[in-house]
């Protein structure tokens, strides 16, 4: 065995050493031409040498190229491609790129796609990228562009149900996604029970989603990392961007405060359905048969401030504040319900030298909900909250000889308020309360190496040490991560990855929706951390002169200490929540096929996922393994974008998915109850999720028409959701059929399917000046 290992290592060295002997470092920065902003995650590649990399937090890259002449290409989503020819000789060189914004929307997609060669060469796998500009092209429900929902069109990423923005990644739940906004975690990334995400498309630059092969710098959630980057202010002039839509409007203002030193960006978005419903209530006032419509609205505020202290130091402050509000007022009765996230993040980027960078941040992030109910002198208040304070530092070190190291540390203090209830009367005759508070400390230490062994073989391997302490109990775990890429030839590469993940904070929810009353809960003596492991292999092939990339990935993920609840669990007001928990296992496996077409007037992608997702709990389904509700055997998405002429672009998206696994009652019995009650029919549920809803499919069409305003740019975005008015199942229930003569005698039972959204046309006016 020992001899075998030595032989393999020697062979690898023999393959790689000659090539390294003739290599030199080419390094530099990629910046935006408009504002000089460092472009994070831009691709820099030498396609002929099949070598490429992406820029770090400072927009910095470093490549090891063989001696000779190379064409270097820098690309970034939403910007044009910059090309430079470089002759690599005896010493290292510095090549900087400045990228111009893409002149039209469709070209943006081309740019994204022109990096397909790099995608082929990237060591990372299972990563999906999307820019805000790209998402804005596609048709959207009510015209509300939503990056998270657009991500659901990528293979391996599913929605939980009609219209919802929750992400179910490779069999994981929506609470198992690490959602980061400028490196700061967002606990509940949705508005209105999950129908919209909290990300205002004008405030967001891009999003990257990791489905597997997680780099070691990420931790704390099992199934995905959603890395959202906000737009930064430009250094040239004050600029406004915005839109007027069917249900909301948005406005962003950005620009310099001190030229080339200090810039800002502020965004706001608010829905205004409540304005119409209030008006309707006013018109119908006095109508006894009319039930007033409660008020509902949500809003988001995003902001950031960037200060360049020196060539080596940059400070940035970013923040998010969003709230949903639901309220109802009548004489003597009022009901108010509000919920939302608050995040603030201060970051300091420091460059020690060309090869060593550090980013240090302090973050405060929290999510809370409040319910206030008042009837005459009685008041009822219920609230839950999670609040985090995080210190984080990350280092990027370009060591040379094909090694790029990342290492860092993170410490978070969590405060949890769970179900704080207060019920009282003004005359003090009644008063009682409930609720618990907990705190927890979470830490992470990590190191990883992006190692290019040869032009053909590269690795990214790392280790994360994570830990958590709460209520006197400490957990710690090692999370190994590794991914590898082997280039078979210029057009084909093979990839593999393995990642182990821990999750110490859990979302308690016993419904299929993202309800604001869902509670975050720490690991403790009785609640062990969740753990997952995922292995994936893939192959990518570039063809059609680099216009098409086809990728196929197979994954297997297994999860321990998954949390569910006993039947009839009460999570709402309960001081002994842990008595309601059940702990079990989960596993998911599948195949994801992804074809991207990138050049020409027609671009788009086709994704097909074949997958299986199961859960197993002692207290559910008699201990037998059962399909998760979002277990979806087949999932297809086809996205096409066509530029008809300079002013008009047409887009379309078609999705098809096997129906959700669902529980329906198989039998019933008649229950008379005690005297004074009417007899009722009681449903009997047996196997969990044994029934399948009808398949889900939908076609959306859109068009973007460029206008010619006197100043700036403007467009009208038309969108038709569910074009052929498919009645997709939202849920199914069984209804009693009664004798029409007496409305009492039950004559039979009928299954009913309820759908949510019929065909919905919308139009949005967008401007920028």
């Amino acid at each position, binding site marked *: 065995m020992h001899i075998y290992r030595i032989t393999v290592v020697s062979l690898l060295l023999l393959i790689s050493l000659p090539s390294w002997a003739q290599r030199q470092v080419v390094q530099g920065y990629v910046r935006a031409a408009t504002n000089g902003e460092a472009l994070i995650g831009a691709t820099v590649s030498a396609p002929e040498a099949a070598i490429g990399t992406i820029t770090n937090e400072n927009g910095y890259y470093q490549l090891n190229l063989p001696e000779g002449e190379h064409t270097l290409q820098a690309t970034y989503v939403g910007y044009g491609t910059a090309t430079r020819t470089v002759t690599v000789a005896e010493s290292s060189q510095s090549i900087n790129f400045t990228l111009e914004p893409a002149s039209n929307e469709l070209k943006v997609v081309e740019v994204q796609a022109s990096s397909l060669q790099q995608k082929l060469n990237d060591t990372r796998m299972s990563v999906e990228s999307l820019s805000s500009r790209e998402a804005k092209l596609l048709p959207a429900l009510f015209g509300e562009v939503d990056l998270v929902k657009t991500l659901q069109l990528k293979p391996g990423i599913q929605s939980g*149900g009609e219209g919802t923005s929750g992400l179910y990644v490779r069999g994981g739940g929506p609470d198992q996604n690490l959602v980061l906004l400028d490196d700061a975690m967002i606990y509940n990334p949705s508005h209105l029970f999950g129908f919209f995400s909290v990300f205002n498309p004008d405030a967001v630059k891009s999003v990257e989603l990791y489905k597997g092969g997680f780099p070691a710098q990420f931790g704390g959630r099992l199934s995905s990392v959603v890395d959202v980057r906000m737009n930064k202010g430009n250094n040239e002039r004050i600029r406004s961007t915005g839109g007027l839509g069917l249900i909301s409007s948005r406005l962003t203002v950005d620009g310099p405060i001190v030229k080339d030193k200090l810039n800002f960006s502020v965004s706001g978005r608010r829905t205004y359905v409540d304005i*119409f419903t209030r*008006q309707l209530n006013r018109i119908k006032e006095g109508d006894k048969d009319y039930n007033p419509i409660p008020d509902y609205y949500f809003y988001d505020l995003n902001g950031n401030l960037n200060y360049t202290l020196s060539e080596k130091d940059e400070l940035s402050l970013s923040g998010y504040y969003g709230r949903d509000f639901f309220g109802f007022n009548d*004489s*003597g*009765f009022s009901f108010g319900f509000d919920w939302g996230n608050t995040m603030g993040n201060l970051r300091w980027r420091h460059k020690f030298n060309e090869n060593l960078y550090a980013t240090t941040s302090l973050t405060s992030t929290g999510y809370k909900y409040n319910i206030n109910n008042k*009837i*005459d002198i009685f008041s009822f208040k219920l609230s839950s909250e999670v609040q985090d304070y995080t210190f984080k530092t990350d280092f990027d070190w370009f060591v040379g000889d094909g090694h790029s190291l990342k290492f860092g540390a993170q410490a978070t203090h969590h405060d949890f308020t769970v179900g704080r*209830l207060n019920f009282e009367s003004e005359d003090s*005759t009644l008063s*009682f309360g409930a609720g618990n508070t907990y705190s927890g400390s979470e830490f992470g230490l990590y190191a990883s190496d992006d190692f290019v062994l040869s032009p053909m073989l590269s690795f990214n391997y790392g280790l994360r040490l994570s830990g958590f302490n709460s209520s006197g109990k400490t957990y710690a775990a090692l999370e190994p991560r590794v991914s590898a890429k082997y280039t078979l030839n210029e057009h084909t590469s093979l990839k593999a990855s393995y990642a182990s993940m821990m999750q110490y904070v859990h979302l308690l929810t016993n*419904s*299929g*929706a993202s*309800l604001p009353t869902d509670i975050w809960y720490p690991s403790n003596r009785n609640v062990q951390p969740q753990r997952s492991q995922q292995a994936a292999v893939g192959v990518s092939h570039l063809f059609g002169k680099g216009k098409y990339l086809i990728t196929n990935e197979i994954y297997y993920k297994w999860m321990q200490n998954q949390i569910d609840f006993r*039947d*009839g669990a009460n999570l709402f*007001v*309960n*001081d*002994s929540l842990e008595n309601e928990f059940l702990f079990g296992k989960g596993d998911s496996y599948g195949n994801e096929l992804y074809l991207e077409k990138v050049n020409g007037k027609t671009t788009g992608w086709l994704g097909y996922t074949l997958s299986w997702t199961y859960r197993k709990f002692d207290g559910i389904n008699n201990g037998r393994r059962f399909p998760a509700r979002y277990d979806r055997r087949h999932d297809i998405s086809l996205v096409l974008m066509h530029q008809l002429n300079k002013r008009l672009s047409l887009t379309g998206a078609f999705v098809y998915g096997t129906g959700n696994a669902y*529980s*329906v*009652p*198989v*039998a*019933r*019995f*008649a*229950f*008379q*109850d005690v*005297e*004074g009650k*009417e007899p*009722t029919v*009681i*449903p*009997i*549920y*047996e196997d969990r999720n*044994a*029934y399948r809803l*009808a398949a889900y499919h939908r076609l959306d069409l859109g068009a973007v028409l460029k206008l010619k305003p006197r100043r700036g740019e403007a467009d009208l975005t038309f969108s038709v959701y569910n074009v052929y008015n498919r*009645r997709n199942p939202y*849920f*199914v229930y*069984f209804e009693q059929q009664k004798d029409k003569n007496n409305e009492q005698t*039950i*004559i*039979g*039972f*009928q*299954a*009913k*399917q*309820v*759908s*949510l959204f*019929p065909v919905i046309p919308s139009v949005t006016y967008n401007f920028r000046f």
Partner: protein
Amino acid sequence: MMQKRLLYLLLPLLAILTACDLEKDIDVDLPYHEPQLVVECYLEPGKQIRASVLESSGYFEAPTPPMVPDAEVFVTTPAGKRVQLKYKPLMIKSTGRFYTHTSTEIMNGKPGQVYQLEVTDGKGRKVTGFTIVQPKVPIDEVEWKFNDKDKAYLLTSFYDDANTANYYRYMTHIDSLSGGSDRDFVTSDELTNGKRVSYGSAYDYEENDTLIVTLYHIEQQYYDFISSVSDAKDANGNPFAQPSKIKSSVEGGFGIFTNLAYDRKTVIIRK
């Protein structure tokens, strides 16, 4: 003015959306369900011991619950007397209650005493259960208060025993016990142990309304059963609810065997 105009623009769209029929009949293939015995037997101090024994059925089978004429029902009293309830379907006209098995035995158990139930039938099915007689918890006060719209809310108060874990079922009826309850819920004393507990209502009542207020002091198994029945009903038709299994107080089938210890007050709402 602008708002009004916008509203008029929006109204046709709302009308289109609401006019769309988003519900339709579908066919659902269900697996075969092996019928099980369903037993309901409530022991009430001073009343005859009676029970109903029926069968569960597949959801889309005939709506009338199947009877089980060959079921044999026995209740064993705390004194060890094994009382057989004879198969004799009976409908009490005044209350609309239906029993399949009855006896002349009067329930006279004292708090803490145990009754047992056994049901068998020709198919070899067997259902068993037991119940511990609960003490009655007296209603301390029923009060009400009017608002300026001449509507009153109701407040019912009682004292919880701090030494025991207690479960309650609270019901109100308007005018009479027939025709269904006005309010009905079960609670535990988890948040109110040892306190004076009050159950309120919204401003639902008018002057001269007659209200019948009942406070049942129930066993945990009855609380679990009622809760699970309510959860199961809620799961059929609520997309946010999770499916819930019935937690019967009996073994070998579905149903409830319990005793009813309650205090009841009738009040007329006056200013």
